[in-house]
C-alpha cells in the first residue's frame, strides 16, 4: 500500500494483531530502545501524550520570545543586542522544529496554535514572570536556559524519533544561550555596586520560579509513570531539579551572589546541595493563569496572530494566482 509521510491520525492496522498484542509488541520495541517513527503503530495514549508534551514545549518556545523581546531595543551595546536577537530567533526556530515534530503525529500546526490562543493549551509557567531590568536577560539565559538544557538533554534520547531529532538540534543551539546569559551576569557582577545589586535582584526574583520549571515533586507528578515506561521521560522531576541545583550553585557563588534560600547548604555526605521548600502554591497559581504576566503574554500572542492574518491571506492568494497562471500557460502551449 502507498501512504503519505505522516499519518493523519488513523492507526495503521497491524496485520493479525489484537489491541493487547499490538500494545505488547509496541512496549517490546520501546524496551529494546528502538525508535518509533511517524507511521508506526502506537497506542492512542502514547500519541496523545506526545502531542500534549511536544505542543506545550513548542508553545513555551514561542511565548518565551516575549520576555526577552522586551529588551531587544534597549540592550546596552550592539554586541549584546546582536546576541539577544540571535537568541530570540533561535527560540522561534525551536518552536517551529517542535510544531513540525508534533505534526508528524497527525495534528495540524493551525490546531495547536488555536489551542494556545484559546487558552486550552499550557506553556511553561516561567514565561509569566516579567523582565524588569537588563539583569533579567542575564538571569534568563543563565538560569532559565540552564534549567531547560537540563530538562532537554534526556529528551534527545526519547523514544519518538521526530521529537528526539528536534531536541538534538535544539540542545546544540541552547548552549550559547546559557553562556551569553552567564556572561551578562558576570559583567554586571564585576561592574559598579549598582550593577551588582541589579544582578542580585534578578537572581532573587528568578531563582524559585526556575526551580519550579522542573515540575511538581515526584510524589505529585501525574504523567510520570507512563511517560517513563514509554521512554519519553528518562529522569524524574526531583532528580533533574537536584542536578540543576548542584550545577548552578557554584556558578552563582563564583559570581559573588547570594541565593535567596537560607536553607541552601552543601551536604558533604551526599555530595549534593540541599535546598529549602518550594512554594508549590505559587506554581499552581501561575499555571492556572494567576501569574504576573499570563494575560499580557497571551494577549501579545493573540495580537501578533491577528496582525499577521492579512500576510498569510495575501501569501496564499498570491500562490493561488501564480498556480492558476501556470496552469493557463500550460494549457495554451
Amino acid at each position: 500500500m502507498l501512504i503519505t509521510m505522516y499519518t493523519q491520525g488513523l492507526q495503521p492496522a497491524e496485520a493479525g494483531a489484537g489491541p493487547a498484542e499490538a500494545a505488547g509488541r509496541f512496549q517490546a520495541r520501546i524496551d529494546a530502545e528502538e525508535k518509533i517513527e511517524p507511521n508506526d503503530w502506537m497506542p492512542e495514549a502514547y500519541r496523545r501524550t506526545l502531542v500534549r508534551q511536544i505542543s506545550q514545549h513548542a508553545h513555551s518556545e514561542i511565548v518565551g520570545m516575549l520576555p526577552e523581546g522586551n529588551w531587544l531595543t534597549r540592550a546596552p551595546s550592539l554586541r549584546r543586542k546582536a546576541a539577544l536577537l540571535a537568541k530570540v530567533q533561535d527560540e522561534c526556530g525551536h518552536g517551529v522544529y517542535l510544531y513540525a515534530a508534533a505534526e508528524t503525529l497527525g495534528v495540524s500546526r493551525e490546531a495547536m496554535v488555536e489551542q494556545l490562543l484559546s487558552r486550552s493549551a499550557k506553556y511553561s509557567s516561567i514565561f509569566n514572570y516579567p523582565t524588569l531590568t537588563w539583569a533579567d536577560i542575564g538571569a534568563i539565559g543563565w538560569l532559565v536556559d540552564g534549567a531547560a538544557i537540563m530538562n532537554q538533554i534526556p529528551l534527545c534520547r526519547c523514544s519518538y524519533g521526530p521529537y528526539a531529532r528536534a531536541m538534538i538540534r535544539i540542545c546544540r543551539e541552547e548552549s550559547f544561550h546559557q553562556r551569553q546569559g552567564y556572561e551578562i551576569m558576570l559583567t554586571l557582577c564585576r561592574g559598579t555596586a549598582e550593577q551588582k545589586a541589579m544582578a542580585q535582584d534578578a537572581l532573587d526574583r528568578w531563582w524559585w520560579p526556575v526551580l519550579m520549571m522542573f515540575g511538581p515533586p515526584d510524589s505529585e507528578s501525574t504523567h510520570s509513570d507512563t511517560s517513563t515506561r514509554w521512554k519519553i521521560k528518562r529522569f524524574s522531576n526531583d532528580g533533574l531539579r537536584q542536578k540543576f541545583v548542584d550545577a548552578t550553585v557554584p556558578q552563582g557563588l563564583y559570581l559573588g551572589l547570594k541565593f535567596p534560600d537560607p536553607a541552601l547548604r552543601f551536604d558533604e555526605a551526599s555530595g549534593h546541595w540541599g535546598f529549602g521548600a518550594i512554594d508549590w502554591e505559587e506554581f499552581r497559581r501561575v499555571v492556572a493563569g494567576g501569574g504576573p504576566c499570563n494575560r499580557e503574554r497571551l494577549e501579545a500572542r493573540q495580537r501578533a496572530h491577528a496582525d499577521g492574518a492579512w500576510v498569510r491571506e495575501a501569501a496564499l492568494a498570491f500562490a493561488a494566482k501564480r498556480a492558476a497562471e501556470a496552469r493557463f500557460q500550460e494549457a495554451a502551449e
Partner: protein
Amino acid sequence: MTEPAMPLWEVFIRTRNGLAHKHAGSIHAADAEMALQAARDTYTRRGEGLSLWVVPSAAIVASDPGEKGMLFEPAATKVYRHPTFYEVPDEVGNM
C-alpha cells in the same frame, strides 16, 4: 477560526559538496519561493548547508511500515549478495 491551512514542505539540506541532501524537517509556506526562504531561516542559521531542497510533503509517497516484512525481509535471506559469503584462500590475499 477557519483560516485555510498553510501548505507543508519537507526540507533537505546538503551540508557539504560531495554529500547527498539529507532530510532536516518540515516548514509551512504558501509557495515554493517562501518555502525556500523559511527553510533557510529555520534550518541553516549556523552554516548547516550549501544547498536546499523543498518538496511539498503531500508529493512524497511512503512505504507502509505494516509491509516492512514483505518489503525488506527477503534481503536478509540473500547472504550471497555480500562479499563475505564467498571463500577466498588466505594465500590469495586481499580481494
